[in-house]
């Protein structure tokens, strides 16, 4: 194996981790709320710009800006669910999809008006120098990103499966009426679930700011990829999303290395269709297949 190939693998895994975190949010929103969130990419971009703004205008280290980004995305997610999606709870599924699509247009173009379509990038002190291990070069920001992804995934897991609020979220996902009878404020819980989903994607976006230039429609690039990963991992399956994210990252970098970037895109979409058609519960089962 050439060192270049190993480098490709490492890059794929690193990027895949970030994809995974964004997709985790999408998967959570789908698993709990049964909502196909087309505003997910746009929410990711909001996360990016929030970090960018804070660190450019206030000179704060972008990683220290993360809490602000988290709070902001949580609020956006919570409010969107509570005051918009909740209103059409009983409407046909595709209406919710369209609602989130409309929101995506609004978010993206607000960013466009505020920040112009120009590319923005952030220089972070101490991050310029790539770390060399053997023949491999890895940007420190990517290592930090990967670490944060693992930590956040574990936190989300602990929240969902070990906390009492998480139990309520899962109960609400299983059965609305039953949860309501048990005294869970379902609307509140659903808002929180959406908020957490948005936070995941927001963090993923924030982590990318030090490694790539950002622009208002950047989220679109990630939108469909998140769907691919979430479906591959099984909608609602956290670890599935993590593993699938890394798989897709690897597929992308390896096929990009071997075939060229655009063909890797083609390959990913083809895999997506095959999974949707032949194994809609995802690679690891347990995924929710939305049946009406």
């Amino acid at each position, binding site marked *: 194996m050439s060192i270049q190939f190993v480098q490709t693998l490492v890059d794929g895994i690193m990027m895949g981790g970030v994809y995974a975190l964004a997709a985790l949010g999408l998967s959570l929103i789908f698993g709990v709320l049964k909502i*196909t969130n087309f505003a997910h990419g746009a929410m990711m971009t909001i996360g990016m710009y929030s970090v960018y703004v804070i660190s450019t205008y206030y000179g704060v280290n972008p990683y220290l800006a993360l809490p602000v980004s988290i709070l902001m995305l949580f609020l956006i997610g919570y409010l969107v669910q509570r005051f*918009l999606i909740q*209103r*059409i709870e009983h*409407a046909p*599924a*595709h*209406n919710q*999809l*369209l*609602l989130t*699509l*409309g*929101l*995506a*247009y*609004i978010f*993206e*173009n*607000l960013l*466009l*008006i505020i920040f*112009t*379509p120009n590319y923005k990038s952030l220089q972070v002190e101490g991050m310029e120098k790539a770390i060399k291990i053997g023949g491999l070069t890895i940007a420190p920001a990517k290592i930090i990103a990967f670490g944060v992804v693992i930590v956040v995934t574990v936190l989300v897991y602990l929240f969902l499966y070990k906390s009492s609020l998480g139990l309520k979220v899962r109960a609400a996902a299983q059965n609305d009426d039953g949860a309501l009878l048990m005294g869970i404020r379902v609307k509140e819980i659903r808002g929180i679930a959406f908020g957490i989903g948005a936070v995941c994607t927001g963090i993923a976006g924030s982590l990318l700011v030090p490694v790539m230039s950002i622009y*208002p429609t950047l989220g679109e690039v990630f939108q*469909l990829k998140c*769907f691919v990963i979430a*479906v591959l991992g099984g909608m609602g399956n956290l670890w599935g999303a993590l593993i699938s994210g890394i798989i897709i990252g690897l597929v992308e970098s390896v096929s990009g290395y071997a075939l*060229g970037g*655009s*063909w890797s*895109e*083609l390959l990913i*979409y*083809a895999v*997506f*269709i095959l999974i*949707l*058609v*032949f194994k*809609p519960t995802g690679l690891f089962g347990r995924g929710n*297949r*939305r*049946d*009406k």
Partner: protein
Amino acid sequence: MINNKIEKYSIIVLLAMAVIYPVFSNSYMISVGVSILTIALLGQSWNLMSGYAGQFSFGHAAFFGVGAYTSSILYVDFGISPWIGMLIGMAMAAAVGVVIGFLSFRYRIKGDFFALVTLAFAEILRVLFNNTKALKGAGGILIPYKNDWSEFQFENDKIFYIILLLMVILATFVLAVISKRKLGICLIAIKESQSAARSLGVPVLKYKLIAMAISAAMAGMAGTFYAQYYGFIDPTVVFAASISVEAIVPCIIGGAGTLCGPLLGAVIIVPLQELSNSLFDGINGLNMIIYGLLIVVFIIFCPDGIYGTIVKRVKGEK
């Protein structure tokens, strides 16, 4: 579900407006008219598959693009008149529709997953056309201008307008005929309850595929028109997700599953966008915010669309 009298008069009024419109129009207004009619045609196409048959497509760009590319490649490389190319393009689009439909319906993909499958197909075609030399790659196709009606080219844009109007009328007529016949009633039955329809002897798969084929062919027709009218196509334009959205939005605003809805939706949405464009010329993106707001507001407050709500009110169903 349709109040025939309201439907008839609404369509007649809209049609009369569309016929009179070019008489008083300058070239800018004609171009707006062409946009309205293009959206109306895409809307009717989506309406059949998703409004009537209930299969929510998020990838009508696939059919639009296939139509546009088929006629354009046949014209540029083989000298085949786009009129014939259009028919072949419609057939190709229908074939793509049937393939997507068969894969999805055979394996019981529905709801949002079906939407994602159609979206992924459109994306695949975009990447494929963008990267294949034989299909002209990212550079797209420039249609040589000849000003010859037999080549689907006209000096006067008003003729383009009239041709497109005829296409919209044809599409609406096809929908009207279908909705009165066995196919239409069975499609609505499938939308409402697939299992009940099946148990009543309705060949569900076959009918859904027919709906997809006709719908895709209509979108393919719109694609050829687009190529001939604008004279240039490339993959990022004709296979864009925005085309798929433009097929959906007029139905949401006007009312999906009604004959008149998409027409009304197109008449409302395009002028509104033009207006916001001219009012806020300097502010890039504001018109898209209005577009997004329109979707959100309609989905929340008027999910049956304007026409659908009027019909419901008149029939006292609220």
